[in-house]
């Protein structure tokens, strides 16, 4: 013999069977979940690609800045003093000495001058 609880349970089950007729179909709901999952995966790849691109651009920009610094250093090392033209180069007075001519050469006769 069924208890009151069993009768209540049977009644609920019967009502549930009627309610299940109004439930939306499973397949479209499942397919929508699959579609959303795939589009999420696509977004993940796009974000990863964007990050890789930004990292590459950042690297290139950093290297360019380093090259710029090196160029600046080279400019400093090759800097010429603006007043350089006023100062004779070292050793230039030695050439003057080697080219020195006696101030009394003119007193010697011309034929003797020719003997060297």
């Amino acid at each position, binding site marked *: 013999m069924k208890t*009151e609880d069993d009768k*209540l349970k049977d009644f609920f*089950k019967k009502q549930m069977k009627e309610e*299940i007729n109004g*439930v*939306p179909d499973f397949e479209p709901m499942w397919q929508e*979940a699959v579609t959303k999952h795939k589009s999420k995966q696509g977004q993940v790849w796009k974000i990863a690609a964007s990050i890789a691109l930004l990292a590459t651009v950042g690297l290139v920009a950093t290297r360019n800045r380093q090259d710029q610094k090196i160029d600046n250093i080279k400019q400093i090392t090759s800097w010429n003093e603006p007043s350089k033209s006023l100062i004779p180069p070292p050793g230039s007075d030695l050439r003057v000495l080697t080219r020195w001519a006696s101030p009394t050469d003119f007193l010697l006769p011309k034929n003797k001058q020719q003997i060297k």
Partner: protein
Amino acid sequence: MQTKPDWKNQLQALHGESYLWSVSCCNYDKEMAKDVLQTVYLKIYDGKAIFNEKSKLITWLFAIIKFTSIDFMRRNNVRVVNRNESQEFSAEEVYEKDKESWFKKILHGLPKQQREVLMLAFYNDLTLAEIAPLLNISIGTVRTHYERGKENFRKQLLHYKLDIELL
């Protein structure tokens, strides 16, 4: 580890019960219930919800539906009002959303936790021990809701002068 086709077959077998449970969790907002169930399927497909086989599949699935519905209701600023258990309720205090049958009127008129316990026990054949963790309450509290829910349901049957054996 279960493959995606295994999941699909099992979820399909429980789809009807899952939807009715989702409707109950969403205070009979059928559109929200559909969105909740959709989100649950996506969580399972994404691998964000993993079945560890420590409980029955239906218990695990219903818990995810329950927690997902709570998130949805919070996002939509829907306040869940739990009726005072000692309060006498009248048959007129029913939810406006569904008036298709007197059965639904009576069920919707029960306090939320009594309704949920009766549905889980009678619709889905869960034991009180299985219902407790799903609703995040003690077994003692589940038993109280179960007994009071049945009592209130029978009171309403008498009120409507209905005999379930004749229906």
